[in-house]
């Protein structure tokens, strides 16, 4: 048969190119494309309307009062209230999570990727468990922290308890991200290093790790962004809901932004709802800044082989 007589129902097209052009016009193709696009619109539409709602609701409170003022219990003074103690509490917790979780996570990943013998059953068991831990709901970590860290170890309802539990929560994320980053360093780099007489440690510390830093940094910052928004474990871990002083040590009482937002929303006065919206924008801004840093680090230091 010849090309001009091609029809869509033709069972065996003679030229593959012709078949491709035909498929493009099939209704199924169009429908699938539309379905994908509408999914995108729905996802972004929901996100945009949420953002718009929070911005409108909290517009009056989006100024320095948010971080220069403390919360108040005085309904006549709500206009001058802010969320300083929650903001500082969140910064304390997240800094401590970084200090606790990143060294442990990154070193574990280096061990698993560079040193561990994958044919050993215990290493495979370890890996399996890390993957599973990444999927455990955060409230479970909270209950574990309440029973073991707050009560059995006697650390109480303090900043350090919260930091340790959130560290455990995001540890699997850090380990997995770091392993991916290390795995992305080509084997040839390691072999070249060995060929030049470098030891294993020299190879890891001077070749593999520096090359993997962008990936590690990105994964770590994203893990910290997850920790910053967690409220569920902190509720169990005795984050208080009203506090007019900033944490002054590891053993201090504390609250965090997600907790403060949740509490404000449950209050009857409309001013609290406004303040909550303002605090939501503040929390979003922090997460946005952290994620931007992650993207910047990745783009700036990424290596291609």
């Amino acid at each position, binding site marked *: 048969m010849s090309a001009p007589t091609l029809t869509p129902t033709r069972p065996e097209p003679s030229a593959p190119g012709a078949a491709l052009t035909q498929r493009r016009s099939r209704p199924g193709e169009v429908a699938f494309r539309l379905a994908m696009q509408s999914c995108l619109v729905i996802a972004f539409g929901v996100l945009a309307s949420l953002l718009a709602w929070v911005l409108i609701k909290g517009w009056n409170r989006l100024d320095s009062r948010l971080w220069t003022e403390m919360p108040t219990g005085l309904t006549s003074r709500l206009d001058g209230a802010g969320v300083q103690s929650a903001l500082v509490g969140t910064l304390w917790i997240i800094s401590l999570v970084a200090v606790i979780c990143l060294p442990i996570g990154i070193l574990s990943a280096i061990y698993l990727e560079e040193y561990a013998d994958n044919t050993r059953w215990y290493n495979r068991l370890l890996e399996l468990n890390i993957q599973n831990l990444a999927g455990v709901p955060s409230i479970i970590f909270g209950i574990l922290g309440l029973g073991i860290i707050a009560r059995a170890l006697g650390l109480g309802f303090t900043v350090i308890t919260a930091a340790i539990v959130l560290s455990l929560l995001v540890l699997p994320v850090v380990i997995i991200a770091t392993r991916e980053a290390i795995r992305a360093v080509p084997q040839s780099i390691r072999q070249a290093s060995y060929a030049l007489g470098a030891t294993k440690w020299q190879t890891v510390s001077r070749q593999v790790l520096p090359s993997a830093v962008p990936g590690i940094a990105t994964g770590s910052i994203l893990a910290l962004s997850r920790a910053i928004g967690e409220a569920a474990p902190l509720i169990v871990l*005795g984050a208080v809901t009203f506090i007019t002083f900033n944490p002054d040590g590891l053993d201090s009482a504390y609250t965090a932004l997600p907790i403060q937002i949740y509490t404000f929303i449950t209050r009857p006065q409309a001013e609290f709802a406004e303040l909550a919206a303002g605090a939501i924008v503040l929390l979003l801004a922090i997460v946005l800044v952290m994620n931007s840093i992650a993207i910047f680090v990745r783009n700036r230091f990424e290596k291609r082989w």
Partner: protein
Amino acid sequence: MHPDREAYLVNRNVLSRRVLAGVAVAALALAGCSDNAENTDAAGGETKLSGEVKVDGSSTVAPLSEAAASIYKEEGGQAGVNVSVGTSGTGGGFEKFCKGETDISNASRPIKDAEKAACEAAGIKFKELIVANDALTVVVSKDNTWADCLTVDQLKKIWEPNSKVNNWNQVDPKFPSEPLKLFGAGTDSGTFDYFTAEINGEEGASRTDYTASENDNVTVQGVSGTKGGLGYFGFTYFEENAAKLKALKVDGGAGCVEPSLKTAQDNTYKPLSRPLFIYVSDAGAKKPQVENFVSFYIESIDDIVKEAKFVPLTEQQKGTLKSEFDALKAAV
């Protein structure tokens, strides 16, 4: 060899610089915080106290203790004392209180025998203080034109366990046919315990097919947006949302009484007017900063109640409060 060495140095420097930058950011954040936490003692004649006062418990009573903490901070003259208020619910609060983890427990119902036993087992002695009144308010939508007053029996018919009432005309044949949609307190709250005890005759006994929430604003939203909606919560939530909701009168056997400051105070709004409590542990009261905070709380109770928009105590209740606290002080 030299280029290699150079590359290594550059790599190492970049790495260490990044690490240093990270540490510096963390250190700065921490340093910034501790600056803020420094005590700036206000002028005052009395000895300066310091330390923490830990309050936890009912979310209904929390606004009152928060107002107390705010006024105390401004006028108490003890800038070194840090008061924190948690909202674990009345039950959750007693759990911590009886483990000795808090000094003061907010409660929207009296302590239960089981909780008392837990406290005794842990050697925690305490004093119960009534600090405000409340009227558990039964609310319906503004669009509800038919119902104005419900008897306790009618409320029981609606809320008792396994109740099959799902239309207003089942509550009273005179009411129109309108689906009944129920909103109520979460089972951890003292409000739930109190309501079920007074209405259904047994604490914790309630039908379960309703929208339960620890967040009373969910009830406000739900009832105001549903023509046949019905819910209950503390009087403050009704006052703040009086434009959106209608409060039902309740007939506890002596005629229909509407919830108000007055009827809650003189206890004529039966059976849903209730006292609100704080519990102070003896161990807590031994700490000078806790004792100082509680005496401030009691002396300024009128201002605190006004700021938190609660139902104030009667003169008689205030007298009891003072003498109870004096007894506590004498005991420790």
